[in-house]
């Protein structure tokens, strides 16, 4: 009788063990936000070699859209901001090693990293867009026609080639793809009438328009959102950054910053 009772007790203990372990693990306090708040400033990693998102100004300080974004986010969180200039391929390692609290560096969303990283909402979509004359821009990306200029070897060239070869009707056989030596050349081809349309990244289109090109930016062919990244094991900080991001993206300051760095068409 006694041994039967012991056996039952042991069974209960074994059954409860995973729950206890899980509770202990989950109960580990996330001090990330408190640590940053106590410190008083957010440490942001960026590769300051990508204007107009981030570069080093003549005085030696970083400047650009991402720099403005980091300052706006930090201000919403009641913090200052310190920038660490790190080569692009080293940014995730710096985040994992705790050298920075967040990455804000025209960083494309990468779905394969979401086990280690929490991303914010996208704040700029640098996917491919159609450019054309104001009257010639098609209403949708499915309605491409005529001669389309793309940079040779680019994602745009690969995408159009893929759509052409797929033969599912996603690209009319009457479309001619004209390969040029740069995205700027693709836009120039549209301006000069050498091409009916161009396909470039949104950033190139924005900068061309900001520099005075008469082309209009049309529908998107792909998405490539830039996001801020925080460690996945620091959920409190990640939520604070996301909350601040939501607030910033709807603000007049953010709109003004976009206008400053990307031009009126992409504010």
């Amino acid at each position, binding site marked *: 009788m006694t041994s039967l009772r012991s056996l039952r007790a042991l069974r209960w203990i074994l059954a409860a063990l995973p729950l206890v372990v899980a509770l202990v693990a989950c109960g580990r306090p996330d001090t990330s936000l408190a640590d940053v708040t106590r410190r008083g400033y957010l440490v942001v990693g960026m590769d300051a070699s990508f204007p107009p998102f981030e570069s080093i100004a003549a005085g030696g300080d970083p400047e650009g859209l991402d720099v403005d974004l980091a300052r706006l986010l930090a201000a919403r969180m009641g913090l200052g901001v310190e920038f660490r200039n790190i080569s692009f391929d080293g940014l995730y390692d710096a985040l994992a090693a705790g050298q920075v609290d967040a990455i804000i560096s025209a960083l494309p969303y990468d779905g394969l990293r979401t086990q280690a990283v929490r991303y914010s909402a996208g704040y700029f979509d640098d996917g491919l867009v159609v450019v054309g004359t104001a009257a010639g821009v098609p209403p949708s990306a499915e309605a491409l026609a005529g001669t389309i200029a793309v940079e*040779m070897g680019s994602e745009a060239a690969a995408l159009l080639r893929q759509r052409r070869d797929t033969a599912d009707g996603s690209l009319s056989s009457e479309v001619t793809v004209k390969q*040029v030596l740069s995205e700027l050349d693709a836009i120039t081809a549209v301006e000069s009438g050498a091409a009916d349309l161009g396909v470039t990244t949104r950033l190139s289109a924005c900068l061309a328009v900001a520099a005075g090109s008469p082309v209009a930016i049309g529908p998107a062919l792909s998405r490539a959102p830039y996001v801020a990244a925080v460690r996945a094991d620091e959920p409190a900080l990640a939520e604070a950054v996301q909350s601040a991001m939501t607030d910033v993206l709807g603000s007049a300051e953010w709109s003004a910053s976009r206008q400053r760095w990307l031009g009126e068409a992409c504010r």
Partner: protein
Amino acid sequence: MSPSPSGPEPRPARRYPRRRLFRAAALGTAVAVLGTQPRPLVALGPQQQVATCNPKLGVHTRLTDEVEEWKVKRTLEMVREMGARWVVEYFPWAYCEPRRGVLDWSHADTVIAHAARQGLTVVARLGFVPDWALPADACSSYLTDDAVPAFAAFCERFARRYAGVVGHVVVWNEPNLAQEWGFRPPSPEGYAALLAAAYPAIKAGSGDTTVLAGALAPMPAPLDDPLAMDDLTYLERLYAAGATPHFDALAAHAYGWVYAAADEPDAAVVSFRRTELLRRLMVEHGDGAKPCFVTEGGWNDHPRWTRAVSAAERVTQSLLAYDLAWRQWDWCESVALWAFRFPWPQRSYQDYFSFVSPDFAARPIYAAVQEYAQDCVLGQESGARSQEL
């Protein structure tokens, strides 16, 4: 319970002869199937030939860590279909001899057999010290003086095993970098000693094999840099150390970084034609009869790497480089650009050197090279800028 005295009727013998016959046949079939050598899942396929207008066109494949044979085969098929005749591939000593005296050629056999079947010419790079030949806490590029004979013996075995199939062997890689020299200061004299041991060993394994001195990292490093030695200085000192009789050809790495393929060579920058400076040194040392092989090189189109160029420039300069080497470098046997395909994403700028993605999607440069290899006519690429890009 006792058996019934009446009991069941005895079952007539041979009541189900067909069932027994069927069982016997099934057993026999199973024995036959299990007893025979299984057919390979990936057939080598028919003998192929590379169709190309540029006989020097090549790529550095990256099959070292490719596990699945069908991917090895598909990679090499795509190399052939692109019009490249040469492949450079790395065969780590540690993989082929994981324990002292225990040899495992399975992966090397697979790669070399498929390459040969695709009609490709393999340049084999050897290196990577196994644990058993390393001192404690040393990295795989640390070859002690004591381990040199064992490495030379491996080179000899490799040359012998693949005699007549692999005609070119590169001894080590970028020894002018500390990271490739066991994180010790680079030593041309030490490397000359390595060549002196490896060269006769390879020749003993296969007298026809061409022995290439390891490619140097193109590197205008300052004299006091502990992590790297200027490649031109290094080659000068290699000759001074008496290495001349111990290599038949020189491997070279010809990266373009942000410079055009046609840019004049300059000792202060890394550019494609820096290779000509190495060549000049060879000639000055009376070694002009030996050829060069470009075993790595090319341009990168990472959107953020500061040594990268745009996608269009990468295509342009790569084609110009292939063409320039073919038409103007009569001392250069082949140009293998880095890197055809990685087994998995590198998640870094390295991915933007590739021609084909890990899942075999051809990047635009692949199609451009394939088109060029049909008639060697350069299109709009010939109008590319020749200044810094």
